């Protein structure tokens, strides 16, 4: 019996916690034209180099995690052990709390500079995930329901979003004139798998009404759509079926602009991931059968010889009766908006930039602000530092650099340098690194040029 209770307890946790999300990412990379991947944030950006070829998989490995709470918020270190303690999290939690993750790998990247224009195309493996969990869920998990008699535990803001897809893209950046450059990138999106919490109205009140003991009164309405996660029971997961499924398709567009105000001031503007994916294959949707569930214990016939605990488990199963069906659905990509202001030094080797970004999610807009400085130290080396403000993580010091050793380029970029060695206290983790084959424009890297200028 207890196993069954635990099972549903875990299911409840999973429903509420297993959501994936995405977040702002790569604020440092924005405008960092030394690295070709910087055009991902603004298709109008024309990176350095004549010919750019990404080494498959290695050319860009990007991972971003963004959470309301950091590791230390969940665990307390006593002696040499880590103790799970959600009291702190609960006390600081909002109605909805998010853990978001964005993973991206370049599988193919080819960029060509044609005169003053830049043609690029490639394939990227992209994963957007987001978990939104409510305060009520945290309370329920950590304290149980006995402490919240006659109090509503609202789990409705808990949701799951997860989209895994391959991004086949082609972009073109061009100069309208000396001062205005535009860029556009079109994406064909091959959906691989998705989880989408389309509806969640789950809430629960435990009441104590005298003669009736404890009662549960819950709103149990939810609808979760999935695609690509149902496998044949005999064959199990087959990579080919997963990776070469072109039934789920979508399109998106990136547009960007780079406007030269004067010799020292640039303004950039870009809108990224404007599109959606239609999920049509390997579908499985889960929807609650009941909108409202009231449970005050099983009504038993004491003459019955049936096992009461089995009856109880059966009743619980019936209460949480989930309807399974197949239904196509679509998910919109989280659209990002960037607008930047850049101020160059006279030699245009140094730059101070201000970036304001916004992330449009289904029910939320997350703004962020970043101030950065980058320097083109030499043809072999450039770096950038920045400070970024994000709502969950107001203090982020970013750092990045790139080395060019003809024809290879190695780069490392992070929006929060502390997340690399003080990760347990951080709420924003961002990292992008990779190796590109970058053939510079002729003689752009003169022989003997030092890596660091004195």
């Amino acid at each position, binding site marked *: *019996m*207890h*196993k069954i*209770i*635990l099972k549903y*307890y875990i299911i409840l946790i999973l429903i509420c916690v297993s959501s994936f999300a995405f977040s702002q990412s790569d604020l440092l990379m924005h405008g960092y034209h030394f690295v070709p991947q910087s055009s991902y944030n603004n298709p109008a950006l024309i990176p350095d180099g004549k010919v750019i070829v990404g080494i498959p998989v290695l050319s860009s490995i990007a991972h971003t995690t963004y959470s309301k709470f950091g*590791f230390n918020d969940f*665990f307390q270190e006593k002696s*040499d*052990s*880590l*103790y*799970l*303690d*959600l009291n702190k999290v609960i006390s600081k939690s909002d109605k909805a709390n998010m853990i978001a993750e964005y993973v991206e790998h370049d599988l193919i990247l080819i960029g060509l500079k044609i005169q003053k224009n830049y043609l690029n195309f490639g394939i990227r493996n992209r994963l957007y995930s987001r978990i939104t969990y409510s305060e009520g869920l945290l309370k*329920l*998990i*950590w*304290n*149980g*329901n*006995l*402490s919240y*008699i006659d109090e509503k535990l609202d789990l409705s803001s808990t949701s799951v979003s997860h989209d895994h897809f391959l991004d086949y893209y082609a972009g073109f950046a061009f100069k309208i004139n000396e001062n205005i450059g535009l860029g556009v990138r079109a994406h064909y999106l091959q959906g691989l798998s998705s989880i989408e919490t389309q509806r969640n109205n789950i809430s629960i009140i*435990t009441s*104590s009404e*005298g*003669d*009736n*003991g*404890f*009662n*549960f009164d819950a709103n149990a309405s939810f609808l979760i759509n999935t695609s690509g996660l149902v496998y044949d029971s005999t064959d199990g997961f087959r990579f080919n079926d997963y990776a070469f499924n072109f039934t789920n398709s979508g399109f998106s567009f990136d547009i960007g602009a780079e406007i030269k105000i004067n010799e020292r001031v640039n303004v950039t503007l870009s809108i990224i991931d404007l599109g959606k994916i239609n999920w049509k294959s390997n579908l499985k949707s889960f929807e609650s059968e009941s909108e409202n569930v009231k*449970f*005050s*214990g*099983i*009504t*038993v*016939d*004491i*003459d019955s010889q049936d096992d*009461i605990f089995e009856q*109880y488990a059966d009743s619980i199963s019936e209460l949480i009766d989930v309807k399974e069906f197949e239904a196509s659905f679509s998910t919109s990509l989280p659209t990002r908006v960037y607008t930047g202001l850049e101020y160059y030094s006279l030699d245009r080797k140094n730059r101070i930039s201000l970036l304001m970004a916004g992330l449009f999610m289904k029910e939320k807009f997350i703004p962020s602000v970043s101030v950065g400085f980058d320097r083109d130290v030499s043809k*072999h*080396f450039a770096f950038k530092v920045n400070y970024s403000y994000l709502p969950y993580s107001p203090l982020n010091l970013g750092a990045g*650099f790139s*080395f060019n*050793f003809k024809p290879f380029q190695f780069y*490392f970029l992070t929006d929060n340098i502390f997340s*690399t*060695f*003080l*990760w*347990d206290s951080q709420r924003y983790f961002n990292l992008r690194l990779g190796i590109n084959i970058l053939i510079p424009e002729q003689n752009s890297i003169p*022989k*003997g040029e*030092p*890596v*660091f200028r004195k």
Partner: protein
Amino acid sequence: MKNSFSKAIVFTGILLMLFNMSCKKDFSKISTSEWKPELAVPFIKTVISFENLFPEDTNLVTDVDSTLVYYYAEDSIFSLSADTLLNLGEEDISFEKGFSLGDLIVEPFGIESSLKMYDVLPYLDQAVQDTLTKYDGQQGYFPPFAIMDPVIVDADPIENFIDLTFSDGNMIITTTNTLPVDLNDIEFEVIDKVSEETITEISIEVLASGTQDVSITELAGKQLHNELSFRINSMNSPGSFPEIVDIDLSKGIDINMETTELKVISGNAIISEQLMYSRVEMIDFGLDEEKLKHIVIQSGSLNYILESEIDIGISINMILTSALIDGQNPETDITIPPNGSVNSGFNVANMTADLTSGENQDYNLLPIELTMIILPSDDIITFDSSDKINGSFALEDLKLQYADGYLGQKEIEIEQDIFDLELDFLNQVEGELILEEPSLKLKYKNGIGVPLTILPHFTATNSSSGQTQDLNMGEININSPSEPGEIVEDSVYVDKNNSSIVEFLSIRPDQVVYYGSGITNPDGEQYNFVDISSKLSANLEIEIPLILRATELSFVDTLGFSLELEDMPIEEGGLVLNVNNGFPFTFTMKMILVDSITGQSIDQIVFDGIASASVDADGVVINKTSSDIIVNFTPEFLDNMQLANRILLEAETSTFGQGEVPVVLKSDYEIDVAISFSAKISP
């Protein structure tokens, strides 16, 4: 260039050092020991009625006013089948009789003889002989004459018999004078030539010429052989003078003998077909007390043995005149050969019979009409009226389907038997329990039209305590139906006013021994009827309306129990019991854990203070009473639960007002119970 690359490696190395310096966490030492959520879980809601408490006890029934009645029925406490009353005993019903041949009718016979003057001449005077011889065939004076010696005329033998002894009949002798002269003083005898005895003597004073004389002789008591002669002892004539007459010596006197209305008792003769015997006999059932009027025979046969001493075949027709089979009188024809016998019978199954046909006895008599016919003989046979047929008639293997009349006074024995009295309700409780109005009903159905009185004896036994208690109920008169087909349903009610039933039940019997005796027609002769399908059966019903008083009544039940708490991370918990009591009882319940090894009680929790519902002056519940009880499980109790394999549920209860007021238990009484758990768990 090499220098630049080296610097880049150094820079990268510094970065890696930074990463290496980053905080390290030993994830193998993550502990969730401080995670102890407390859960409140509704568990069970149930409504308990009395029927729920004794689910196996099908004896608990609801009366029209919802009062619970503990009802126990034992079918066929005794039964009396019609067989018992329709049994006519082992002996067959028989009837024996000899049927004598009696007087026989024989065909009349006769003799014609003539005595001519030629034959007489030798017995006349010579002169007369000469004269007559001289004038024979002429006219002349017929001379006077007189026979001087008797003249014997032998008749031809009669063919149809050798001899006969008559019981009746007449011999008619006609004497005719064919001479032209008168004859006087004719005297002759009819002589049996074999026995030489004179059968009759005829005397005729004057027999005028051309006239006849008729003489009748009764033959009763006479024996007659078939060879007769006439001996004429005297005869004379005065002659014809002065008349001249034709003299013809071939004339004389004719003697004719005829017989009429002959009945014989013995003899040797050819016998013609004739009725020997025709009469209705009565087969008497020969019963002592019983006076049966009408019966229907289910099975049986009418067998007969007929042995003939008669030297002639006899045809017998036998009819049961007051009986019917398929609407017809049962009838059979029998032929008995001369001096032979017949042993046969016929099936009388499904025969209805009226046994009231006797002239002086209107019961127990089955009429049987016998007609015996003597078959004609081709040859002469010897017979005697005392020759007889010995008849034996018997109704054998008789089983009656129906009988009416008077079936007598018979003693009925109800054999001793035992039935288990499964009063689960009483057996499962301990303590003082006083049942206020128990009763016992002996319900019977009687289709047997015979009044019956029985005296039953019931003795209750408690096999545990060894106590016994008689019910002490009186004699019972069983009503009987007034007409066939009717079934009387009635019951005998026994309560505390006419028996010791309160004491009878107070020992909480588990067995009842019963026996009894009875007698039919206790008031003497009266009209009875019994059909084989009819029976008397009696069922015992014990009704105990649950109107009772009880104090410190305890009820214990044992539950098998197995709890695997190893996987259930419960640290401590509580049980919340919300009771809305509609029973007129207060309750204290204990849940006692019993050690699986030692069998000893190792821990317990008590749910105390479940208040009784309030009752009115009649003991009927008027309001439910609510009680909320919270009992906490300690960690030790939970540990002990793992050691236990049984739970004793012990309920101690008293009726409202500590047993001072009788309370009525009704089927609509309910206890609403809601059980919830609260538990602190350590996932």
